[in-house]
C-alpha cells in the first residue's frame, strides 16, 4: 500500500478528532493502537474516505479521498468494529452477493465470487446461515469475507479481535495473516499488535509514536499508566 | 434519499414489526394491556420525521402486501388490504407523514418539556387519529357498504384508547428527542 497523509486534520464542530498529521505508509501491514477516543478510528476511517479531512489531504494508492471518495472506498475496504451492523441482508451468502450485484456484477459471476470469498475465510458452511444466528467469531469472518469479495487492494480492520474467545481470535488473526491484500489493523489486542512490522500509537488526537512494535507498545504502557 | 434515510426507515419498519410480535404490555397507570404496534404510526412520524416516517410505513405496508405476517397477531397478506379495514393500513402511510410534518413544525428543540409534549401530542392526534380515520372510515363504507354515519358512530368507541396511545407516543417521542434527536434534521 501507499497511503500519504499530508497535513491532514479532522474537526467535528469544536472538537478536534485528529491534529494535523503528515505520514507515509508503505508495506503490507500496519498496526494502530491507542486509548479509547485517541483518534485511531478517525485515522482508519480517513483511509477509505468514510471520514474526510477538514484540512490537508489523504491519498490512497494515488487516489485522493476528498476528490474521489467512492473510488477510495473500492480501493480500501473497511471492516467495522461491530460486524453485526455491517451485514445487512438476512442470510450470509445474500449479503455477500448483494454487495457484488450493487457493483454491477452478473448473478453467476457474483455467485462464483461469493463462494471464493467464503472459501478464503474457511466459512463455506455459513453460506445459508442467518446472520442473526452467527456467533461473534463467525460474524467477524463473514464481515471480512463480504468486504474481501469486493476485491479491495487494502483492508482496514477496526478491532477485528474485539470480544472474541481465544479460538476465534486465532482464526481471525490467521485469516488476516493469510490475506495477500494489504491491511491496516486498529486493535487493543497487544499481542496481535506486537507482530505487526510497524505500529502507530495515537493519543489525544495526535500521533505519539511510530515505529517498531516493542517501542510503541512500551510507550503505550507509559501513557496509559499501567 | 440518503443512505441514512433508507437505513432509519428500514429499521423503524423493523421496530414496528417487532412491536407486533411481542405480547401486549400494560401502561402502568392503568391495568389495560395495549398492543404496541398500533402506536407505531404516531411514533414513526414524530420520531424520524415526515418523509422517513412515511417511508417506514411504505416498507411495512409493502411487506403486508407481499404476504409476510407482520401485522400484530400474525396477520398479513392481500386479504387484509382488500378487507374492510384495509383503508386504515394504507392510511398509516399518510398518517405517519402528517404526524411527522406537524411535529417538525410544532416541536422545537430548545422548547420546554411541556411545550414539546404538547406539540407531539397534537401531531399524534391530528396525524394518527384525525387523518387516519378520515381515510379509514370512508374505506369501510366503500368496501362493506355500511352507511358512513354508522361507521363514524361505531368508531367513536375507539377514540378514548387512541387518545391514550397518542399521549404515550408523545412521551416516547419526547424521550427519544432528548436522547437521540433525529426529528430536527429534516430529511
Amino acid at each position, binding site marked *: 500500500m501507499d497511503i500519504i497523509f499530508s497535513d491532514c486534520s479532522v474537526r467535528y464542530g469544536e472538537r478536534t478528532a485528529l491534529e494535523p498529521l503528515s505520514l507515509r505508509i508503505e508495506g503490507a501491514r500496519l498496526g494502530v493502537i491507542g486509548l479509547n477516543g485517541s483518534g485511531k478510528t478517525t485515522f482508519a476511517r480517513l483511509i477509505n474516505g468514510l471520514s474526510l479531512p477538514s484540512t490537508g489531504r489523504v491519498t490512497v494508492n494515488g487516489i485522493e479521498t476528498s476528490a474521489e471518495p467512492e473510488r477510495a472506498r473500492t480501493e480500501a475496504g473497511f471492516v467495522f468494529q461491530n460486524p453485526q451492523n455491517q451485514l445487512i441482508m438476512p442470510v450470509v451468502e445474500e449479503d455477500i452477493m448483494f454487495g457484488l450485484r450493487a457493483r*454491477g456484477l452478473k448473478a453467476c459471476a457474483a455467485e462464483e465470487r461469493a463462494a471464493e470469498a467464503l472459501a478464503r475465510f474457511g466459512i463455506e458452511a455459513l453460506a445459508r446461515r442467518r446472520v442473526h444466528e452467527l456467533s461473534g467469531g463467525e460474524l467477524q469472518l463473514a464481515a471480512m469475507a463480504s468486504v474481501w469479495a469486493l476485491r479491495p487492494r487494502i483492508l482496514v480492520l477496526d478491532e477485528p479481535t474485539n470480544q472474541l474467545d481465544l479460538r476465534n481470535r486465532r482464526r481471525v488473526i490467521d485469516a488476516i495473516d493469510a490475506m495477500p491484500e494489504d491491511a491496516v489493523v486498529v486493535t487493543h489486542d497487544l499481542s496481535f499488535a506486537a507482530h505487526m512490522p510497524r505500529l502507530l500509537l495515537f493519543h489525544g488526537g495526535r500521533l505519539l509514536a511510530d515505529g517498531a512494535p516493542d517501542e510503541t507498545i512500551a510507550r503505550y504502557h507509559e501513557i496509559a499508566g499501567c | 434519499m440518503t443512505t441514512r434515510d433508507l437505513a432509519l426507515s428500514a429499521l423503524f419498519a423493523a421496530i414496528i414489526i417487532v412491536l407486533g410480535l411481542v405480547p401486549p404490555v400494560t401502561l402502568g397507570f392503568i391495568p389495560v394491556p395495549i398492543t404496541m404496534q398500533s402506536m407505531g404510526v404516531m411514533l414513526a412520524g414524530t420520531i424520524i420525521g415526515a418523509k422517513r416516517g412515511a417511508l417506514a410505513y411504505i416498507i411495512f405496508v409493502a411487506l403486508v402486501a407481499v404476504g409476510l405476517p407482520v401485522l400484530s397477531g400474525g396477520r398479513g397478506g392481500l*386479504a387484509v388490504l382488500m378487507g374492510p379495514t384495509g383503508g386504515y393500513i394504507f392510511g398509516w402511510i399518510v398518517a405517519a407523514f402528517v404526524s411527522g410534518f406537524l411535529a417538525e413544525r410544532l416541536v422545537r428543540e430548545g422548547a420546554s418539556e411541556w411545550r414539546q409534549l404538547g406539540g407531539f401530542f397534537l401531531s399524534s392526534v391530528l396525524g394518527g387519529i384525525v387523518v387516519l380515520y378520515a381515510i379509514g372510515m370512508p374505506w369501510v363504507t366503500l368496501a362493506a357498504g355500511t352507511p358512513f354515519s354508522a361507521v363514524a358512530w361505531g368508531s367513536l368507541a375507539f377514540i378514548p384508547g387512541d387518545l391514550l396511545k397518542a399521549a404515550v407516543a408523545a412521551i416516547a417521542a419526547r424521550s427519544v428527542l432528548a436522547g437521540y434527536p433525529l426529528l430536527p434534521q429534516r430529511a
Partner: protein
Amino acid sequence: MLTSLYVEGRGPLHRVTAGTKLAGLAIAGVVLFFVTQLWLLAVFLFLAALAYLTAGLSIREALRRIAPTLWSLLFLLAVNLFLLPMQDAAVLGLRILALVFAAAAVTATTPLAEMMAVVDRVARPLEKLNLLRPGDAGLTFGLCLRFVPDILSRYEALREAHRARGLKVRVLTLLGPLIILTLKQADEVASAIDARGLRGASKPFPSSERHSS
C-alpha cells in the same frame, strides 16, 4: 422467524405469474363494484373461495389465517342487515367476501421472491425519476427483515434488564430505549452501507484479477 404466508403447491393458481395474479385482483376489485346481480356475485365468491381453499392449506388453517378480517366483515354485514335493504346488504356482502378470498388466494399461491420481483418492478419508475437508486427497494426490504430478529433480541434484553433491577415491564420504559438503541444502530448500518458501496452501480466493477496471485 418471519415466513411468508405462501403455501407450496401445484394448483392452477400456483402456475400463474405474480404480475398476472395481482393485476387480476386489481381488475376484479374494480369490476365487482359494477356488478349488482346476486347470482353473478355468488359465482365469483364460489370461485374465489374455491381457489383459496384448494391452495394447499387445510380448511381450518385457511380460515384461521383470515379470521380477523372475516370477523370484522361479518360484524359489518350484520350491521348492514339492520340499516340497508336486504338485497343491497347481500350484494355488498358477497362482493367483499369474494375479494377477500381472492386476495388470500393470491397471497397463498405466490412465493415471496416473485412478490419481491413485482415490488422491484413497481420501484423502477422511481429509479428513472432519480428518487431511488437501482437496488434500493431490495436493500431496504432486506435491511428491514435482517434486523427484525436483532431488535426482538434487544427487546428481550431490555425486559431482562427491567427484571434484573426489579422494575415492572412497562410500555414507556421499554419503548424509549428500544427506539434509541435501534436508531443508533441504523446510523452505523448506514455508514457500513456507504463503506461497502452497496448503493447503485455507479461505476463498472474493476475487472483486474487481484486475488489470483
